[in-house]
């Protein structure tokens, strides 16, 4: 007596179950919330306002950052000084940096750099 039929269909059933499990495996979800774009736009806003107002006091830069990003840590480089802001939130792996160039009062190019640890 040959029982090949039984084993073959058992094999097929197991394959089907395996295919189903693979099919149901969770896929990585793409971030559709445009969170990064909005974050970058807010960073640009800060840089544009800073470049326009030219008030590079440590306190002013820090308070602006805290007002716009109350739950994020970051770093600001402006007028030759580097300021770390809200370090209590820690530095995460995901880091976004934006810069703006402007002509200073001495007619030389200057740069403001803003980094956010998201």
């Amino acid at each position, binding site marked *: 007596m040959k*029982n090949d039929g039984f084993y073959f269909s058992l094999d097929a059933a197991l394959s089907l179950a395996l295919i189903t499990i693979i*099919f149901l495996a969770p896929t990585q979800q793409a971030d*559709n919330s*445009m969170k990064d774009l909005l974050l970058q*736009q*807010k960073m640009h806003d800060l840089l544009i306002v800073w470049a*326009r107002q030219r008030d590079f006091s440590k306190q002013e830069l820090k308070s602006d950052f805290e*007002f716009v990003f109350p739950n994020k840590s970051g770093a600001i480089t402006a007028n030759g000084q580097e300021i770390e802001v809200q370090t209590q939130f820690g530095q995460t792996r995901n880091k976004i940096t934006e810069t703006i160039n402007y002509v200073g009062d001495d007619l030389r190019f200057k740069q403001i750099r803003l980094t956010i640890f998201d």
Partner: protein
Amino acid sequence: MKTSKGIAFAADFLTATMLLFCCTLVIFAHINNSVEKISTDYKKMRLAENGVFLMDSLVKNNDENNPLMGSAYFNGRLKRVEQNVVDIGLLKKTGGKSEQQQFNGFFVKSISFQPKGKDPQIIFEKMQHSTCIGIERFAILKDGFSQEKGKITAVVCNEK
């Protein structure tokens, strides 16, 4: 014709068929669930996209007829629109015409601004309920001769 294999084959066939039905059912349920999720995510993404672009237009353009599309300050002396400098007088006009708060597929539920270190001020707010998101931008708020830094927030919602 009766053979010794009959019962074994019938049980085997039954098990395989049941498993096939179960797997097919699970796969179809998963597809249905995924399609619904993709549809919801797509609507949310479109809403976020519309909100982000609307707010970008608001802080960078100047439109006297429709301030929601542009409330940036127009500097008459320099003959140019100053991006990220919002004319509060113009922004306050956004509360006037409700048809201008309605767009294709979404509407603006509220507009507010908050000068740094002060309480937020609401320009208009509708009581409609739907799926909404808030978009925030930072700018210089220019009100007459005074100017201060602050945030502008718009809440945009999907039409039902």
